[in-house]
């Protein structure tokens, strides 16, 4: 058998891991319809802030029996097969059961480990990890750094612990704020034809991006705005929403309907655009590879919004804000008629 060489960096797992593994987080409670504070937490925190850095791993040549021993001693249900930082596979409890059943428990790990792995990257936002837990049935994921080296393991328990702690901090902040008096909440003031609504757009939360645009399309449909105009408004709203999401520290998207125009305003909290003329050019983009792999960040957002709008304005101050306004003209009677 020879090479029994588990890389135990440090054991720090407890048995309630398994209990938590069986109780998946409700994605709706964290990321679906939750508050802006939670959404921002899920975006602000990266996988690396939450993951366990102490990895218990085993080498490829070690036997499954050795893997079983290691898992039992450390009360873990999955063991990365890893050498010098490179992840080769994972041995799970299921692999051990199968090995015992079929009599190959003394075979090497590499012959029976799972090699088709789902991994997370250390720099991904926590919201991404939550979606992975939701989309796959695994209780934990290996975390790789940008050089594809194994740097940690993340379980639902890690996510929960971090969130609970940060939430208590945020709630304390909010309580203090509300004690100072809170009647500034924006409401959609609706006089006869006037309509206004705002949406908070959270940084980097691509899974939510599109909600505001979708709501806006719905509102325009209900108000029987011309379909072609509604589509143009929705395109601009979506592009600007995505822009706030991938380029800014977060911001607000506002829909304003008046007698003769629909206005979409996107205002964010920075970092601002140093060269607006350049940013307006087709194909100009500062997006990273991850955003690009999702099909965004090709530098078409601002040109697209400008193209569909009747009037377009952009202002920005580096380090402070960017504000984009798209105006769409509508025939006066369109709105008036449907409000009767």
């Amino acid at each position, binding site marked *: 058998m020879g090479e029994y060489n588990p890389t135990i960096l440090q054991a720090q797992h407890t048995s309630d891991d398994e209990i938590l593994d069986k109780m998946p987080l409700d994605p709706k409670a964290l990321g679906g319809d939750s508050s802006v504070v939670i959404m921002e937490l899920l975006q602000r925190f990266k996988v690396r802030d939450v993951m366990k850095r102490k990895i218990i791993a085993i080498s490829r040549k070690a036997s499954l029996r050795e893997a079983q021993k290691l898992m039992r001693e450390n009360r873990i249900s999955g063991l990365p097969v890893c050498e010098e930082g490179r992840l080769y596979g994972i041995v799970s409890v299921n692999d051990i059961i199968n090995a015992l059943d079929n009599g190959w428990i003394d075979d090497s790990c590499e012959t029976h480990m799972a090699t088709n792995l789902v991994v997370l990257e250390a720099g991904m936002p926590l919201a991404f990890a939550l979606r992975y837990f*939701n989309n796959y049935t695994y209780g934990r994921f290996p975390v790789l750094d940008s050089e594809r080296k194994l740097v940690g393991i993340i379980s639902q328990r890690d996510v929960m612990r971090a969130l609970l702690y940060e939430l208590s901090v945020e709630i304390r902040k909010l309580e203090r704020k509300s004690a100072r008096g809170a009647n500034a909440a924006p409401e959609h003031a609706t006089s006869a034809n006037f309509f206004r609504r705002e949406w908070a757009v959270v940084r980097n939360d691509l*899974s939510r991006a599109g*909600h505001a*645009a979708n709501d806006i399309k719905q509102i325009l449909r209900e108000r029987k705005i011309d379909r072609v105009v509604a589509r143009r408004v929705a395109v601009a709203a*979506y592009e600007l929403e*995505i822009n706030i999401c991938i380029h800014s520290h977060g911001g607000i998207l506002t829909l304003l309907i008046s007698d003769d125009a629909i206005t979409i305003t996107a205002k964010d909290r920075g970092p601002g655009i140093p060269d607006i003329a350049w940013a307006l050019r087709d194909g100009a983009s500062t997006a990273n590879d991850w955003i690009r792999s999702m099909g965004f960040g090709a530098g078409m957002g601002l040109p697209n919004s400008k193209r569909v709008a009747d009037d377009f304005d952009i202002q920005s101050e580096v380090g402070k804000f960017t504000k984009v306004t798209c105006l769409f003209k509508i025939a006066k009677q369109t709105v008036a008629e449907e409000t009767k």
Partner: protein
Amino acid sequence: MTAVEIAEKIEGKVEVPVEGASADGLYVGDLLSDVMGHAGEGCALVTIQNHLNTIAVCTLVGCAVIVLCHSRPVPPDMAEAAAREGVAIVITPLSQYAVARALSFLPPAEH
């Protein structure tokens, strides 16, 4: 042309069925901003982007059928959103080009 009929022509299978989902044109694109800007209403979108945002884009441009190439799997959150928004998803082992060829009788749907 319904999602089922499309699937038959491209060795595909309807992963998320939606009653009455159909397309009368085709748009091919993996760059969602491009799809957003140019795909026409009523098209089938041929793409490899197998995630939630594809559904958002399709809803906004009025596309009721997505064809996912290279047998890309549909993640549960995408399937859920598709069913909710009434967007059918067809999976095919073919490439985007092969799908476009097989469905070349559909006109380009551009806005």
